[in-house]
């Protein structure tokens, strides 16, 4: 009885698809970008802010790949992105507030 009821329910996770997802390619990209990051950190930019910005862009790229492929955001219903992006909106406010008066004193190389 219970087994019948259970069988009638579409079970979580059993989506039935057998598509090959590009997990290994994502892994290779993550590893290569990590090496690039270490290399960039040793470069001497005219402005420290350029190096910092480039490193943050690279980190954001890596984090986006993990969220999209490994955390399956790419394969989930779109609305679920409202949850992490809602939190990120608050983070943006925090960062803006904290750095507003600090940007002129960014660390020098």
């Amino acid at each position: 009885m219970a087994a019948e009821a259970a069988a009638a329910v579409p079970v979580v996770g059993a989506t039935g698809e057998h598509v090959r997802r590009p997990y290994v390619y994502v892994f290779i990209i993550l590893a290569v970008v990590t090496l690039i990051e270490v290399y960039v950190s040793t470069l001497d930019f005219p402005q420290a802010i350029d190096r910092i910005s480039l490193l943050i862009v690279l980190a954001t790229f890596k984090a986006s790949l993990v969220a999209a492929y490994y955390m399956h955001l790419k394969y989930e219903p779109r609305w679920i992105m409202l949850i992490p992006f809602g939190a990120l909106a608050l983070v943006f406010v925090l960062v803006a507030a904290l750095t507003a008066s600090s940007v002129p004193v960014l660390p020098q190389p």
Partner: protein
Amino acid sequence: MAEARTRRYREPNVHHGSPWPFVIAIGAAVSYVGLIINLPLMVLGLVVFVSGAVGWLRDDLRTTPRAFYGPGTENLPVLGRVSARKLATWLFLATEVMFFSAIIGAAWTVRLRTTETTGLPWAYSGQILNVPGTAFVTFILICSSLTMVEALAAIERGDQKHMRYFLLATMLLGITFLAFQANEFYHLYFTDHLTFTSAPDGINANFGAAFFAQTGTHGAHVTAGVLALAYLNVKAWKGGFSKENHETVELVGLYWHFVDVVWIFLFTLVYLI
């Protein structure tokens, strides 16, 4: 559909209640209060918290695996393929995003403002921290994300053997990361004398506090992840997951990948900049 769902709620053998979450909640509340007013109270709260978690996990591991966990875990059409448990996990991760943002934001505020007020500079990349070694453990953590997602992919195909091996590999990689971090902390603290209140080589005294707060909270999260993976491993080797019932693997995976995402930013913000 609604009728069938109501009937399942009443099935006596579809057990979906447990007292342990209440114990865990009480333990958490007591430890938070203790953190503010009394440290022994905090320890008591933590003991209650851990007891609740252990009791809950023990009950779960003793339960016969089945295809259906109970109400709240099924796919409700209104949520579009997302179960209540996955939704709750994402909400939890959203709170974690804000938690880490607060810590990283505080560290950067200190870094940007005390450099000019105290005169001593912040440590530049590689001055005191081991960048190549940390790049290697960053790679280890990325490997562990790959093995985690491959474990999920394996059980989605019904491949028990590969799921077990990938879960074991993920846990071992996580332990490797923690071992490196413990070793790093030990050397920084005792050999290089980078403490919470002082720093060597003319480095700003706040550097140590900022460093240990950011990487320490992350390390605590990795520890929690390794414990969750230990539970997954035990359950997987007991045959507790199947092609039809493996959401726990996915949810622990979400947390594990999130911890990886946090490290991606910490590696950049703490070690490289």
